[in-house]
């Protein structure tokens, strides 16, 4: 009688076994990778064209975020300051500094400084700064304590589940509206009560509808 199975099938269990192992490794690797900050770019810290220090300006000197990010309360984008904002002070302070050469070059030539975006959402996600900042979500909640960063880096995953965590349970992330730019604000003892009142007063109802961010 002819052999029903060809000879190579002898090694079939081995192949199957190998396949199972590889698949298992693949699954573990994917979970490990896609769940990790590498995938969500936490820690992304690109080199900027100007060695601007948030630590110095926002931290040591205590500039308010809104001095530079002027539109954060009225537009979807916080907006980066025009070169003019830098020159307001640096015409007089450190006018010869080597580090500030690109700023002066921009001011003289009229060519804008091309900053590198740190917090980069996908094009199909429409985040609105004004809606959050005016509702009492602090800058620090998404951007971390920028006042301690020499070079800005991404500290939160900015993934959809991370957004939804807060939209489903906003209370821990709320603060009085006048404190949104305060990097060192910490919740008081009665934060739960404050958050409850705040939500009621401001009529906050963070949506989890797809259409709120995707359109």
């Amino acid at each position, binding site marked *: 009688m002819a052999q029903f199975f060809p000879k190579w099938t002898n090694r079939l269990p081995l192949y199957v076994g190998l396949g199972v192992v590889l698949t298992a490794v693949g699954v573990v690797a994917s979970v490990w990778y896609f769940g990790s900050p590498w995938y969500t770019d936490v820690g992304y810290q690109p080199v900027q064209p100007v060695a601007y220090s948030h630590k110095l300006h926002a931290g040591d000197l205590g500039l308010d975020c809104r001095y530079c990010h002027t539109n954060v309360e009225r537009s979807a984008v916080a907006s980066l300051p025009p070169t003019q904002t830098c020159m307001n002070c640096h015409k007089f302070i450190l006018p010869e500094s080597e580090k500030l050469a690109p700023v002066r070059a921009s001011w003289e030539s009229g060519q804008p400084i091309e900053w590198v975006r740190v917090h980069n959402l996908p094009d199909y996600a429409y985040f609105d700064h004004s*809606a959050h900042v005016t509702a009492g979500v602090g800058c620090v909640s998404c951007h971390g304590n920028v006042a301690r960063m020499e070079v800005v880096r991404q500290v939160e995953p900015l993934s959809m589940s991370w957004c939804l965590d807060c939209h489903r349970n906003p209370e821990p992330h709320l603060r009085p509206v006048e404190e949104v730019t305060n990097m060192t604000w910490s919740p008081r003892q009665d934060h739960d009560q404050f958050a409850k009142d705040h939500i009621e007063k401001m009529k906050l109802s963070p949506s989890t509808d797809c259409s709120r961010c995707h359109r």
Partner: protein
Amino acid sequence: MSDKIKIEQQQYWRSLEARAAGGEVFDPVPDSAGHSSDNSWSRRSFLTLMGASMAMAGLASCRRPKERIIPYVQAPEEIVPGNPKQYATTMPFGNRSYGALVTTHEGRPTKIEGNPLHPSSLGAASAYMQASILDLYDPDRAGGVVHDGVDASWDYFVAHWKTLEEKFLANEGEGLAVLAEPFASPTLFRLKREFEKRFPRATWATWEPVSDENVVKGRKLASYTPSEDHRQVYRLDLAKVIVAVDSDFLLGEPESITMARGFASGRKVATENDEMNRLYVVESAHTVTGASADHRLRLKPSEIGPFLKALAVELKKQGLNLGDIPESHGFGEHSQSIAVMARDLMAAQGSAVILAGLHLSPEVHGLVALLNDVMAGEPIVRWVRGGSSSVADTSALGSFAADVSEGHIDTMVILSGNPVFDMPADVDFKRLLKNTRNTMHVSLHRNETAQECNWYLPKAHYLESWSDARAADSTYSVIQPTIEPLHGAKSEVELLSLMVSGTDKSSHEIVRDTFKWMMSSGDFEKSWQRVLHDGIVRLEPEGPGPRPNPNAAKSILENRVFARQVTEASNLEVIFTPSYSTYDGRFANNGWLQELPDPVTKLAWDNAALISPTTANEFDLVNGDIVTLALKGRSIEIPIWIVPGQADQTVILPLGYGRTQAGRVGSNVGVNTYELRTTDAMHFATGLSMTKTGRRRDDMANTQDHSSMEGRPIVREATLDEYKKHPEFAREMVEHPPLTSLWEEHDYSEGYQWGMAIDLNACIGCNACVVACQSENNIPVVGREQVQKGREMHWLRVDRYFNGEPENALMVHQPVACQHCENAPCEQVCPVAATVHDKEGLNTMVYNRCIGTRYCANNCPYKVRRFNFFNFTKDIPETTQMAQNPDVTVRSRGVMEKCTYCTQRINRARRDTKLAGAKLNDGDVVTACQQTCPTGAIVFGDINDPNSEVSKVKKRNRGYELLSELNVKPRTSFLAKIRNPNPELEES
């Protein structure tokens, strides 16, 4: 069937083929492979490309895309990045102008809407206006000054002009000619006067292929002061009976927005007891206006004049004071109907109005002006002075052409237009240009004319330059730029100013000078800022309007256009008409307009000779058959298309196609029908012969059978009488058992609940909403081949149905977009939950989840979902990308999309009111289609608020929902169409 159903669903059909087949004929997959031969890929090329793109994808995914943020160096005070601004400007269109509000994102215009303060746009915008933004960004505009085929510069041209100027100053302009388009601009008017003063012996000719020349001439015939230009301004909202004589006043003619708004305000009945105006349409073509008719009579073009005469005589017989007019010999079989119509008009005397088509002869317009003066009077028809506008003058073309061909013209400056393409064939302008040494053409594109001229000067788009305009009622409006000229282009104003002043001034200065000249008193700067903000200023009218002279009727009626001629059946008549898409050819390179299905034929990307079903039978023709049309020794070959309800022995030839130098979109699309048009028969001719060639076009893209809804009662209409007897007829048309849901239904009683109502009685089928939606939502253009396969991407389509016998069919239009069903069938079949409901009742589409199974589209009973079969947006040129709305995701291949109820506008309105500490009010959220609808047929808002406009409209008894028997609970509902036929005519 239950006795409750009083009004039977009428038999509607979309195409003659579908009517014959008794159902659907469109097969979206024409051959087994599903793609045509010219894009078949070999296995090798497929693998090569796949391999390459895999490699690229692999590489690309390793790197996080590095994005740049580029702030200003010095921030402009008024710009907040992320928040768009609107600027008031004006779109000039021949000697008409339409006020616009242009949305700009960080200095980049993205959307055009009507200016509510402007009398000719009333906040609405036509399809042409909406689409003109695409012309601004047209990559084929790129390029600078060209001199004899070599790139040059504006400064070089200025230097060249200076040498010519010396010569012409010395000889007072002998040999200098300007060929301009009609305009309504006070600045151009002022410059023209200065030009005539500076060069008294120069020639100024005015040419536009489609213009109101005959209307103006007609009014002169009927006036005491025949030397003046007058125009009439209509208030159709006050009219009770309207007779349109070959007049497409709802769409094809100037001021169509105000006309449509006025007409529709007399149609939007809230209850069965409301009064409704009545529209009689007598026409040769089947137009959009004909679709709204209560009575429609189709006549050959040569019978239009005799018909009007018969009507005038009948009106006089019934007591209308028309002076002494000659007798008429009746109008054969229609005499009885004319008598009934005249009775209706007489009964409504004081609020009855007759409208005549632009293309009819001056005598017809003269007669109509006289009739209107006694039948309507002010304020329904108001005569105003033409003022600072200019009118095309075809009669002067002959002497102009003679001058040129005899070599008297040494230098010709052509201000805009495209005379090489659109001049009458007998003028042969291309040959004429060879007799002129210096020819200069300022134009948006290097078009057919520019190719034949020594100099091409790129013209600035109206969104890039300063100018001004006077509206039909003399309101002054400013044209202010919303962006710097993209290609360093100059405006006509700047060129003309250079010619009259010898100095190179900016258009800003020139227009301000005009405004100073017009403003006799007051604070100039303050008024100027005001006009920049509002877009308009109501200046003193230029004296009282002239009066018509009733004694002119007799001499007018003696003209031969009113004589009835007996013609042989083989003697075809032809009408040249501007296309609904490309107009006279100026919009040929506009993808949005090319892809816009014609509201009557539903053809996209083509024109055709339109004939009636009977004529088609006589000549044994079917749609797409190519025929030879011959007229006075000239001939063209063109495919035919059959239009039910068109007059027999009549061929309608849409102009504006067959351009050879339009650009990448519009070149060689359709057939150039100007080749048959001659000076003695500009709009209409008899003696056309048609012969079948035996060849045919099978690749014509026609959407009329796409998305068929299988004979269900989709369009519902009744006559006013029937409506009075059965006010609930629309809802009662469909009988169904009590509806129960398979699912536990969501609760939509909280918060904002969005809904829309569309009044079919106000919808005229003008397509403005389709282009507005395309502009607002970044909808790609897919091209003829894809449209042919039913893959057009328009989120909002306007369905066109016929009903009745093909010869006398009546047309109905119905806009259909996503109905936002509460029990959405699409959501139930999506395997990845890419389409889900939000709490406010929107059926949302989550692009980033969609994997492209297309189950949803298959399960949608309304066929409103659109699939990206290709990456249509990938190859959009960089300039055109600037037209896209940054608030809406640009979709890629393999993704489903559909109407979102303009969710980005809802979000923005919600945020803006929240930042202002307020609550959304009714009217804060306006969808793009609703915003631009000339007739206000579309209402959108919160249906949870019983006082919102949309809630009120939805409660009207004409309301019904499409396929409500499926229990899908659509959020969009319709109001049934009501026609108001004359009971006396119904009986006869």
